[in-house]
Structure formats: C-alpha cells, structure tokens
C-alpha cells in the first residue's frame, strides 16, 4: 500500500455497500519493529515498553483499512509511561502492605471491587478516545451501575451457574459496550439476541468435549512415548502401575486444555453475535463471520509455532491473527461514510487503561 487513493470512493448514494476490513501489515516488516521494541525495552529496563506499545498499536491500527481509509492510534508514549508508573506504584504499595505489614490489607479488594466499574469505564473511554478513523475519534460514555452489573455481578453468576448463564452475561456486556460506544457524534447500538448466544453456548459445549478428548489422547500419547523412552528418572516416578496414573494425568491435562480452548471458541462466537447485532447511527450495520473452530486453530498453531521458534515467530503469529480478524469483519454501509463529525468527549484515564493492560484484561473493544 504505497499510495493512498487521492479521490474519495464514489458516493454510492443510499445504496448499501458491504465494505470489508483489510489488513496491510506483514510479518517481515513487523518483525523488525517488534525485535527493536523488545531490544530497547530490555536495555531501558522496561521504560521503553510505553513507546513499544504505541508503535505496536500504531502499526496494527494504521494498517487496518476500511473503505480506503485506515485507523490510527493516538496515545502518546509519555502518557502511557506515566499511567504505567502509577499502576506499578499502587500495585507495589498494596503488595508490600499485604505481605509485610498485615494480611488484613487483603481487605483492600472490597474498595477495589467497588472502584472496578469506574476503572473499566475510564479505561474503555481512554482506549476509544485514542482510536480514530477518517479523522473522527471513537468515544465511550459508561455508567457506573451498568458496568457494575455487567462486569462485576454477571461474571460471578455465570460461574456459579456453571456457565449456563454465560450467554446472559455476554448479552448484557455486549449491549453495554455497544450502547455506550460512539463514533464522533454518532452512536452505536447493540442488541445481541439471547437465542443466538445460547446456540453459541451449545456449540461450545460440543466443541469442549471434542477438544478435551483430542487433548487427552495427545497427552496420553506423548506421555507413553516418554515412558517408553529410556528416561530412568521418569520410569522410577511411574513404576509398573504407571499406565493408570498416566491416563488420569492425561485426562486432567485434556480437561484443562478443553476448557481454555472452549472459552476462546465461545468468545469468538460472542464476537460474531455482538457485531452482527450492532448498528451505527441506526443505519450502518456490521458483519462478523469468524469461523470459531478456525479461530481457535489459528491461536493454537500460533502458540505451537511461537514456542518451537523460542518466540521469534510471535510477530508472524500476531499478524496472522489480526489479519484473520479483519478479513472476517465487514461494515454494511448505507450510503456514504463522509458525513460523520467528531465532537468533544470524555478523555478517559490512562492509568486505568494501563492497569487492565498490565493485568492482561481485555474487554474486546
């Protein structure tokens, strides 16, 4: 993509057009950016990670195209660094208090839980505000009790019900995010249908059984291969009665892998349902056609490739995942996309965004 089309796409009037997202990044180019990010992060004892994050996200957003225009990530590295330092400092103080002063400080999780909805809203507002498309930025205006219900209460109910209420949780959180998200002065609206989410849960259940079985068989095969080899230490650990315990260990590994993979499968399905029931400005709609099994396979094969190459194929894997996500997503535009305008919106809070980033929590915005 060396040149940008100099004329804007022809206005198709009120006719609806299906516009696919596309991704123009490539693994070779990203490898250079990634390895330099890594090297400078190590040499600067982690300080450069703020710059690294901005460059990584700018690369992915900037190479994501829709209707001849790309996305842009706007956060400033210094902001990110300050956010990280604040989060790091707070986590350090809390850990010191809990470990060295008194375990009673563990009670800090109560105010933490109460602050969480606010943190989530501020974080989503920041991430949305730092994202633009065609010179117009996204924004997020959350409500405390809405976030409290979707992200604090509902996940517990989903777990307590052994997953049976998970589709309700997914519906509420998808709708919450969709309804509070805006593109400039225009609003999104999401109404995820419960029936489809339960259908997704059913497929997930079948998938979990299949994936669990395959993982068990694989674990047992690898385990007995190891036993058959001449590793004396291992044989000593599993004396002649070894096969029985081997099967149960394999089953535990299989169940563990099955649950993790099923969770990813489930999330991919929720993404489809959420996108397909989202409208922008009440007229433009979205299409998400992620193949759930294929998506899980991409993540699993990415993981294996990354491990085998001691992480050096990680850039390739990241590009591959993102490319697939883009290729599976489309906007059905009712007419031209020229009319959007930006407006002032809450800026969010960088420290809360960095908190969830450091903790590895992603709300899938």
């Amino acid at each position, binding site marked *: *993509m*060396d*040149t*940008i089309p*100099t*004329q*804007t796409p022809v206005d198709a009037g009120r006719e609806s057009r299906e516009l696919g997202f596309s991704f123009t*990044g490539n693994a070779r*180019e*990203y*490898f*250079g*950016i*990634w390895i*330099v*990010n*890594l*090297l400078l*992060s*190590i*040499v600067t004892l*982690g300080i450069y*990670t703020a710059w690294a994050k901005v460059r*990584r996200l*700018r*690369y992915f957003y*900037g*190479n994501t195209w829709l209707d001849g225009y790309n996305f*842009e990530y706007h956060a400033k590295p210094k902001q990110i660094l300050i956010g990280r330092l604040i989060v790091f400092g707070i986590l350090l103080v809390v850990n010191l208090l809990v*470990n*060295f002063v008194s*375990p009673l400080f563990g009670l800090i999780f109560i105010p933490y839980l109460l602050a969480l909805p606010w943190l989530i809203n501020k974080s989503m507002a920041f991430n949305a505000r730092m994202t633009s*498309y*065609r*010179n*117009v930025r996204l924004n997020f205006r959350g409500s405390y009790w809405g976030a409290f219900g979707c992200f604090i209460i509902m996940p517990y109910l989903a777990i307590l019900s052994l997953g049976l209420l998970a589709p309700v949780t997914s519906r509420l959180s998808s709708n919450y995010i969709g309804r509070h998200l805006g593109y*400039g002065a225009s609003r999104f609206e999401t109404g995820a249908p419960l029936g489809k989410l339960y259908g997704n849960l059913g497929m997930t259940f079948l998938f979990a059984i299949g994936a669990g079985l395959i993982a068990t068989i694989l674990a047992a095969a690898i385990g007995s291969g190891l036993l058959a080899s001449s590793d*004396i*230490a291992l044989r*000593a*650990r599993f*004396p002649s009665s070894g096969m029985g315990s081997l099967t149960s260990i394999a089953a535990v590994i299989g169940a563990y892998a099955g649950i993790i993979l099923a969770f*990813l499968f489930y999330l991919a399905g929720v993404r489809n349902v959420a996108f397909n029931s989202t409208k922008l400005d009440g007229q433009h709609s979205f299409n998400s056609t992620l193949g759930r099994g294929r998506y899980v396979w991409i*993540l*699993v094969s*990415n*993981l294996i490739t*990354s*491990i085998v190459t*001691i*992480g050096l194929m*990680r850039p390739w894997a*990241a590009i591959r*995942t993102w490319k697939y996500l883009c290729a599976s997503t489309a906007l059905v535009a009712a007419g031209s996309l*020229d*009319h*959007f*305008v930006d*407006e002032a919106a809450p800026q969010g809070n960088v420290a809360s965004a960095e908190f969830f980033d450091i903790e*590895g929590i992603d709300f899938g915005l």
Partner: protein
Amino acid sequence: MIEGRYFRPEVARSEPAKLWGERDDLRMVIGDDQTVHRPVLATVSDKLGNVPRKLTFADGSVFEVAAGADIDTLLDSHGHFFSRLARLEASWKFVSIAAVVTVALLFGLYRYGLPALAAGAAAVTPNVVVTSMDRGTLETVDRLLLSETKTSTQKQAEVQALFDDVAKASGHANPPLRLLFRDGGRVGANAFALPGGTIVITDQLIKLAKSDDEIAGVLAHEIGHVAGQHSLKQLYRVLGIGFMIGVIGGDSGQLVDDVVSQASALQTFAYTREFEADADRQSVETMIRAGRDPLAFVDLLDRIGGDKPGSDETGWLDTHPGNKDRRVATEALAKKLGWQK
C-alpha cells in the same frame, strides 16, 4: 510537492490536497481550488513501517500521505530518532543483529543477571522487612497447617541445646536465629526456615530421628537457608521473572500468557533445588566444624521419603534433590573437607 488528502477539523470527509514548502513555511492547495493556504504544523506522526503519515495542523485539520512520500525531506526530519529507527527496522542486517543480541541478552539476563540482581537486593533488604515477613508467614502456617507442640519440655531443651551448638558452629549472626517447636499435623516430619531467622521443627521429625546428629544436621541445613538468604533470593528472582515476562509479553495473546506463566512456575522448582543443594553444603561444613556426623541428616531424609517411590532421583518437577544424589554430593563434600567416619 507532496500529494495526499486533507481532512478539515473533526470531519470524516477528505479532499485531495498538495503540500510543499518548509517546516515553518508550508503551503497547501485543497482540491481544485487554487487558493494557497499556509497551514501551521502542530504534530507529525512518526515514521513506522508502511503506515501512512499524518500531519496535524494547529487548527486540528489533518493532511495524510502515503508512507512512501518523502515527508522527512520536506520537514527536514531525517535525523529524528524515530525516522532513524524506522530505517533500521527496515534493514535486514540490523534486524538480524538485533535478534541475535536480544536472544543472547534475554538468556544472559535470565541465567546470570536475575540471580545476581536478586542476591544484591537480598543483601540490602533491611532486617525489619524480613522479620515482619516471618511474623506474617508464621501466622498463616500456624492457622492453616501447624498446631501447638506436644514435645516434652525436657526434649525441647535438648533440641534447643543442639540448635545452639550448630548455630554457634555455623558462625551466622544476623538476622538472629530462633527455634520454634510445632506439631506438624498434615505436614508431618519436617523443618523449615523463614528468611528472618525463624526456624520451625515439627514433633514428628524429632520422633523420627534416631540420633542427635540427625536432628543437628537438619537444623544446620535450615540455618544454611537463613544464612544464604534463600527465601529472599527466591522472592526477588520470581519478581524479576514476572517483570521480564511483562516486558517481553506486551504483545502476547491469551494462550501465550498462560503457557509462559506456567513455564516460569516450573522454573521456581529448579531455583529451589539449587538452594537446597547450597543449604546441604552449608550443613556439611557446619556439622564438621561442630565435630558431628555430616551425613546423618541424609539417613533421616531417607526415612522421611521412605514411603514415596522414586524419591531417590532428582526429577524435573522436584523441589528438593533426590536422596541418592544428595547422599553422593554430601559424601563427596565431607570427604573433601577431610571428614572421616
């Protein structure tokens, strides 16, 4: 002259535009309009791969150009850090060197840097911190695992005397050592050391021992943990690994995160084995200095592990070295130090 597209402030519609001039004296025409504008530059997005560059002007309007367009010549910014960096990132030679250096650096940091940093951090950790750690840990294990000792006061006094004897022979002074007696409950025959100098021995271990030297050897081993600051070093190494993963893992998917943290948990087992071997070494030295049998404690360990199959070899998942390995290592060391039975 650079061609691109121009967005008026806060508007999604773009118009083709042309830009020329210098950083402080830019000229621009928009669309077919011949009017020459003089935009004032506010910010320019850094060069990065083939991502289009965006010039934001003081009024909030944006001029966007393809990555190939020579913005750096127009703005005289070839020398800027990120312009240089982007050129390096695109050079195969540089990227290959960076990859080799990064892998070597990570390996070196992990293998030598972290242990050295952890030892340094342990050395400067004030006693107040470690004693309060002792208090907290003891509170927790007392509540969850251990209960009050049932060993007679007379036996306690005997073991205390043994402890004082090996403590003196160990030459360790700071933090001060103290011995506590507990009923091991589920834990059974065991002894452990906390970083602040608190050493706990269970009733079951005292009962299982057949000689004073067996108990003394175990106590010397635990004193070795305190003297070597093993718990603190372990704590700092684990923190260091966590930090390293954080630095590396900025861009790792959910699956990668999971697997890496499991793998680092396994690594702590290897650290523990290293510390155990070190404490064994210190036990042998102390016991010889005290004129006691340095191998006796291995007999006691054999008796503890007697009911578990396969505890003779050291495996990948073991926290302690296998007893056979342990016996061989301690015998060799004792011989080297001139000890004879």
